[in-house]
């Protein structure tokens, strides 16, 4: 499923809303999550999962081609942990598909 299919599915649930309004709502939600993470906050959506930011400390790396050491700056990486309910839903048929 891609974003436009998500919007189409939602539009079918809300016949009184325009497609572009639903598009705007979906973008608003994703933008809010992005913004919160950019500010270093957590996003917790019970039943779905939680997003957090992990800080990867600066380290000395190596150019794999030349073997030359290079310094790698500190990096932030978004991290997602699946919520309990969703994890269970993925395995509802016991062993998975």
């Amino acid at each position: 499923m891609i974003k436009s299919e998500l919007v189409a599915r939602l539009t079918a649930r809300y016949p009184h809303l325009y497609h572009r309004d639903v598009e705007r709502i979906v973008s608003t939600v994703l933008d809010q999550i992005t913004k919160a993470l950019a500010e270093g906050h957590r996003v917790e959506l019970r039943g779905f999962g939680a997003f957090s930011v992990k800080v990867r400390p600066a380290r000395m790396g190596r150019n794999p081609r030349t073997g030359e050491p290079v310094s790698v700056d500190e990096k932030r990486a978004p991290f997602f942990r699946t919520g309990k309910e969703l994890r269970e839903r993925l395995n509802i048929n016991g062993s998975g598909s």
Partner: protein
Amino acid sequence: MTTTTLTRADLTEAVFQAVGLSRNESAQMVEDILEELCAALARGETVKLSSFGTFAVRQKSQRMGRNPKTGDEVPIAPRRVLVFRPSHVLKAVINGQTPDPELGEGD
């Protein structure tokens, strides 16, 4: 840095501000978005949200694990797990950079 947590209530408020929905409808909409995402993933579909990231369902085969307390070997049943791959755009924004247009929207 104080870490606050964004929740459904914050998303509801943002949706309420963005379009002319009532607070109730905004809350329902946030719920429905999450439900559509969960339903697609439960069907085994990959969910691609451009400039945000990709959620994919991965099949794990059975393996032997150990009860860390007793040291007993116990089989871990085959199962499906969800993995999230952030898009280039999301990674860039989180690192305070402007997304590189060369990389496109990412997946």
